[in-house]
């Protein structure tokens, strides 16, 4: 799998963060500690390679909470498969960003 071989640790971290429930840019930045100049371009590439997919939040939800709508990201089937392969390559990835931590927030 060529995509698996090319996936960097940073990209794997971002995929893991999205998988763990950090589904918008700023939360991924906070979780991974990566700057905005790294996170957003990486997400563009991941979306271009069809590993993640974005979707705008409904306006009604944002209006109810009196804030602008956010753009949420989620893993695609390919992205999930690639992330599984990356977890084997980077064993500490799951410990670095655990799903439980995200669910507890």
């Amino acid at each position, binding site marked *: 799998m060529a995509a698996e071989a090319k996936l960097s640790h940073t990209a794997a971290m971002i995929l893991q963060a999205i998988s763990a429930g950090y589904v918008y840019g*700023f939360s991924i930045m906070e979780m991974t500690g990566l*700057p905005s100049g790294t996170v957003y371009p990486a997400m563009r590439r991941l979306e271009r390679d069809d590993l993640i997919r974005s979707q705008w939040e409904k306006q009604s939800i944002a209006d109810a909470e009196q804030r602008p709508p956010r753009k949420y990201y989620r893993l695609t089937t390919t992205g999930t498969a690639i992330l599984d392969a990356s977890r084997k390559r980077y064993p500490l990835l799951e410990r670095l960003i655990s799903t439980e931590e995200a669910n507890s927030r």
Partner: protein
Amino acid sequence: MKPPADRAFRALQNSMLRVASLLVPGPRRSEWRREWQSELWHVRHSVCGCGAFSWPAQREITAFCLGSLKDALCLRQEIPHTREPAPRISGAPAQCVLRLCALLAVSLIASRLLPNVRGESDFTRYHVNPGLILIQTSSSTENFAPTISLALYRDWKGTRQRYFDEFAFYRNVHETASLPSRRLRGWTVTHASLNIFTLLGMDLPVEPATLASDSDLPVVILSDQLWRRDFASDPDVAGSVVRIGNQPARVAGVIPRGAWRLPGEPDAWLLESESSLAAHTSPAAPGYLIAHLSPLGQAFMGRGACVPINMRNAEDDNLDIFGVSFAGRLQDPRETFGFALLLALLALPAVTSVTLGESNYSSHRPSRKRTMIRWVFLAAKFLLVASIAYFASLDLAWWNSSNYSPLAEVGQFAWSFSICLFGFRWALSDQRQRCPVCLRRVSHPAQVGIASRTFLGWNGIEMMCVGGHTLLHVPSLPTSWFGGQRWLYLDSSWEFLFADSGTLCC
């Protein structure tokens, strides 16, 4: 109320996002900006939750906004991968037409910038009466000489004529002129009868009020060159008084360059009445006599260039004089070009084959539309070559001739003929090497076989269209079974070999 520093930081951060968005490709810009604006709101809300201004918080938000530049640049770098490759122009028909248009523009601009050429090409604007002849003692139609005396002119003008209905007389004299600025200049002045320009039928840009002035001063008309040289192109020169020899004269106007086609290259024309001419000119002084043929005279003269005229002078002596047509001097340069163009077209089959190598040995043929485009392209090349030939021949022949010159006229004819002939030859040979489908020039020539080593096998050069439409076979030795070039049309199974087969440049 937010503190000014907070407002300044907000403006800075918004500006950074706005500037960065300019780097994002247009179709994705609005969504990109919307996402970053939304994220910025959440960052502000998270970092400055209490609403109080703090430098570390603003630094963090600004650092977040700086990341937008990197994001925008990353998106911009993806443009070359998504943009359609620009069509290659090398060998394309558009390139050929552009080059010809550039040549035409250069020759056209040169013809408008070179004053002598402009005068010659503008000659058609000045109408000259037909039926004019020059009367002289020589039968030469090329070397006109002042041979008729003023006395003979006055004698003819005073008697009834059968073959002529009007005469005009002029003679060229080199004189010293005193300008209004009191400067002295040497001019070649044409002393002419008052009717010279009306006889010629020239529509001069001279104010009639100046000519009809009841002033006693004779009228002088300046040449364009003199006006520029000695009067510094003064637009108010009309009405000023100059002194020519001992005679004051009033300037009436300026004759455009190229308008005067009669013998001599004068700097100024001094229009004088009969009495003034007689007073300032010796009766025996030779000059040029222009006559307008009556209907009977025109029938007698026919289309001949020179006719002898039986004449007797006051002493009843026979005079050997001739009426010489100077129609050649009044010839439109377009007529000269038209004749050269006709000759070039007639001579074309002698210098190249006029066929386009249409024969092919495959069942596939280009569509009717493609065939029509091919013919239109050939016609456009011929038209552009002819236009270039017209302007370039004018430039080359007349750039150094300040007045009418038979040599320049021959030069214009020779240049027109040569450029047309070899230009058309090039147009045909170029067309023969253009793919009938996409009109690009075939390339990558490959020698197949050697004539000295093959007996019945085919030998020649194969060239191919870079679009993958055709192969061109040109035999080395034309034979009865393979006399000329042939096109082989390739079907779609060849397309995988050619990257830009879909890029047609026609």
